């Protein structure tokens, strides 16, 4: 054949074969570039995603720190419960798993099915399951069902101090109360078990498991004294029932350092069943929203979450402001005809016939409105407002509980003579009971505004690593002299005046009563209250009792003062025995 054509043929086909080779090289270079991009620059991302896919993470709950009262009694503890989970890929008999879980856990089939059929590495079905139920489920020995033990919050005293302590949710996180505020100390750190699995969820043995141990939460030591709290609760319950009141609050604190010894708001609720409404409520017929609203109401801590018009107990503040400003001296004399004219308004005294001639101490003992209106007028709007502010009434107290309500007060520009007159005897504005107690404390303790609190310290379970909390104190709210005068006057109120029902034999008690009509006026609803402290010359304990909407007699001096008296009769000897003078 023609060698020439063959040769010619060959020449270009050779060069073209070389071209093919270089085209291939070019494409390979691009692919190698792509590999470099994926394996160097994207490596971190894909490694992370792959790790997520391969590892199954199970968390180990940390034991939550306990809450311990002033005497070392445990108020909030942990008990062992179980968390039930399913591992989708390990389930062999899906229907049986669904049936067993529905039966044992009392859950709807729809709920369980959705979770069992969901394609995930591990799916939680229910937490906080009783250990006995967990054991029962374990005994079925079902493939793909995991029963993990962990802790659940347990409150040994059920409803005692419920609104103070608060409770925890399904993940052991604080929902209300101290459980929320001290969450960071109590919660600890959850641990994890990381297991490497194949696509079917079978653990890859040689990879082992990575275990991060949980760190237990720290114990919280509180100033609450369960003995006082439980006695106050009994008293409050008794009062609520005998007086047919809506609710009764009792607050007991140390006016010297702000430690709260008891805070009772009946009706309380059971901390071990915080989502159960009282029996009187037909919870089945309620919508979810309505139910949540009722629950929120049930969990409210009246002493700090709600405001009210303090009424005559607020005369303590007016008196202190008057004395401090020099607007009034204890010996100043007044005349009460049963009313007083403020501008064109006639403001009546509670005693229709009037108290007649009286000095300031007697006026306080009588809780005479015209006397306090006169004092208020003498102080004047500007000065009164600045004392209001100086006493700390415009700020929150800073108590270590969530949701403290602020003071509802007129703007200074809007205070006319009538407003000033009503403020002077504790009306037309609102404060919280804790605000009243703290302000009164600062007036009788020598002028130191303390921060009310429960939390004393946190420490590890073995007592080590403790951290003692300190709280701000503001000095010179009133002078020592004014404070001393106030202690004297308030002791007189209890010894011989309107607060005589609060007197305790053998103890010097000071105090002030109040009876305030709730808004709207004329509803016939009253709040009866009494604020008392002892010993009158050196107050170590201060108590406030507030009775909300009592039926029948509603005077604070008649129904609230006896509550504090009974309380004091029991706790004063107890506090002496406890050598309570820790300050």
């Amino acid at each position, binding site marked *: 054949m023609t060698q020439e*054509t*063959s040769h010619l*043929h*060959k020449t*270009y*086909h*050779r060069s*073209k*074969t*070389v*071209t*093919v*080779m270089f085209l*291939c*090289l070019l*494409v*390979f270079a*691009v*692919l*190698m570039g*792509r*590999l*470099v991009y*994926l*394996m*160097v620059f*994207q*490596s971190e*991302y*894909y*490694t992370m*995603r*792959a*790790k997520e*896919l*391969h590892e199954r993470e199970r968390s180990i709950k940390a034991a939550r720190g306990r809450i311990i009262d002033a005497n070392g009694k445990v108020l909030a503890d942990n008990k062992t419960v179980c968390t039930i989970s399913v591992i989708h890929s390990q389930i062999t008999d899906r229907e049986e798993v669904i049936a067993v879980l529905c039966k044992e856990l009392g859950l709807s089939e729809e709920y369980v099915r959705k979770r069992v059929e969901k394609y995930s590495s591990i799916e939680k079905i229910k937490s906080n399951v009783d250990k006995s139920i967990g054991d029962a489920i374990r005994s079925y020995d079902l493939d793909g069902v995991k029963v993990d033990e962990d802790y659940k919050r347990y409150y040994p005293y059920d409803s005692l101090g419920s609104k103070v302590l608060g409770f925890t949710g399904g993940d052991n996180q604080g929902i209300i109360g101290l459980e929320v505020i001290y969450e960071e100390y109590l919660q600890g750190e959850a641990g994890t078990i990381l297991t*490497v699995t*194949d*696509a*079917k969820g079978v653990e*890859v043995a040689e990879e082992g498991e990575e275990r991060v141990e949980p760190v237990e939460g720290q114990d919280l030591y509180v100033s609450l004294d369960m003995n006082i709290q439980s006695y106050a609760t009994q008293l409050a319950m008794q009062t609520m029932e005998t007086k047919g009141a809506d609710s009764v609050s009792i607050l007991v604190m140390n006016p010297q350092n702000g430690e709260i010894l008891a805070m009772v708001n009946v009706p309380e609720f059971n901390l071990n069943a915080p989502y159960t409404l009282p029996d009187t409520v037909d919870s089945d017929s309620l919508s979810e929203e309505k139910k949540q609203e009722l629950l929120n109401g049930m969990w409210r801590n009246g002493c700090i979450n709600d405001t009210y018009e303090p009424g005559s107990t607020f005369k303590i503040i007016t008196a202190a402001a008057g004395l401090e400003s020099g607007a009034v001296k204890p010996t100043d004399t007044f005349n009460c005809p049963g009313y007083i004219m403020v501008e064109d308004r006639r403001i009546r005294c509670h005693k229709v016939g009037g108290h007649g001639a009286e000095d300031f101490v007697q006026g306080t003992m009588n809780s005479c409105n015209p006397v306090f209106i006169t004092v208020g007028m003498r102080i004047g709007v500007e000065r009164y407002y600045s004392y209001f502010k100086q006493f700390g009434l415009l700020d929150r107290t800073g108590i270590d509980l969530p949701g403290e309500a602020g003071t509802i007060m007129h703007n200074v520009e809007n205070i006319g003579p009538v407003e000033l007159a009503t403020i002077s005897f504790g009306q037309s504005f609102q404060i919280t009971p804790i605000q009243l107690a703290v302000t009164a404390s600062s007036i009788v303790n020598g002028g130191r505004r303390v921060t009310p609190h429960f939390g004393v310290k946190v420490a590890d379970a073995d007592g080590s690593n403790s951290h003692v909390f300190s709280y701000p104190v503001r000095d010179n709210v009133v002078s020592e002299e004014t404070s001393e005068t106030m202690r004297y006057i308030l002791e007189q109120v209890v010894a011989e005046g309107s607060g005589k029902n609060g007197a305790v034999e053998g103890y010097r008690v000071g105090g002030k009563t109040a009876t305030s009509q709730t808004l709207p006026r004329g509803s016939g609803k009253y709040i009866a209250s009494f604020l008392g402290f002892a010993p009158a010359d050196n107050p170590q304990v201060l108590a406030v009792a507030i009775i909300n909407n009592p039926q029948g007699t509603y005077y604070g001096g008649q129904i609230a003062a006896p509550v504090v008296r009974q309380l004091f009769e029991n706790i004063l000897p107890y506090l002496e025995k406890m050598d309570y003078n820790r300050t």
Partner: protein
Amino acid sequence: MAERNSSRRRQSNNENFMDYSLLFIVLFLLGFGLIMVYSTSSYEANLEWGDSAYYLKKQLFATILGLVAMIFVANIPYHFWERFAVIGYIVSVVLILLIIPFGRESHGAKRWLYIGPLSLQPAEVAKLCMILFLASMICTMGKQIRHRKGFWMVLLVPMPIALMLWRITQNLSSAIIVVGIAVLMLFVSCPDYKRFILLAVATLAGAVVVVFVVVQMAANQADSLDFRGARILAWLDPEAYASGKGFQTIQALYAIGSGGVLGKGLGQSMQKLGFLPEAQNDMIFSIICEELGLFGGFAVIIMFILLIWRCMVIANNAPDLFGALLVVGVLGHIAIQVILNIAVVTNTIPNTGISLPFISYGGSSVMFLLIETGLVLSVARGIRLKDL
């Protein structure tokens, strides 16, 4: 003439002449492939068959069979096969048609014929026969190939086979490979460049239009898309289709990406534990990357580049055009398959099932590739040492 004759004589005296470089490269790839098949399949094989070497044994058997066939083919002068060119084409057609009544279904597609215990993919037969047929045809055509008629003839001949592979065996990748081999052989045998550039531009434009249309359709009405349309969407954003069409791609990317520069070490892949289903098949390269890292991946690519280079040297020194075209066909087959496989695994192009030559699990594939290697070796034996 005399000189040529004498050199032929000298060569025929030297019966054992072989292209040892090529042989070594192929044997290396086979050995490496067997190791990787065992590494990728042992876990699933143990779960499914109770024998971790299940897939390895089958692959080893096919490899030995293939090596025997290779030696056999390498020792027969390649011109012997020229007479079977037309028969081969017909046999390909018949085998593909036999799929319709006798094909075995696997993975939702009928691609296999079973002869006793042996399985056979007609697509592999078709690729080999196409190389043989086109080489023979181009040689017969001579100068005609330079004309438009010849050009289109060569392009049209593989089309019936390609269409049948696509429609009957649901195997678009094999169809693409058959057409690709034909285009490459045509390119080499034709002095023209312009037409090929136009052809490449047209193909590229067509691909862009298809992608554009699919994306538009998806934006309007996602449900009306077929299987391949969804693959294109999954290619563009695999994470959005992670539980469907993008699943395999995503798992392959996890494997490749988590390998990093040095890899997790041989046998240490996590993705092969069921996350990447049938890792020993088309996606084996991703496990190579996971276990051996960027270096492992590069090493494999470099081995294939060497293989292609050897093929090029043999083609350019082949004693005649027929031999050269046979080698170019085999070169094209291997190159296209390697490039498409790695491109799919790295999600550079939409997912389509293509195995990695000599390495992926698959008896038919490795056997026919070894027969093709035998052909190349046979051509190499015809080379006069003087020309090298």
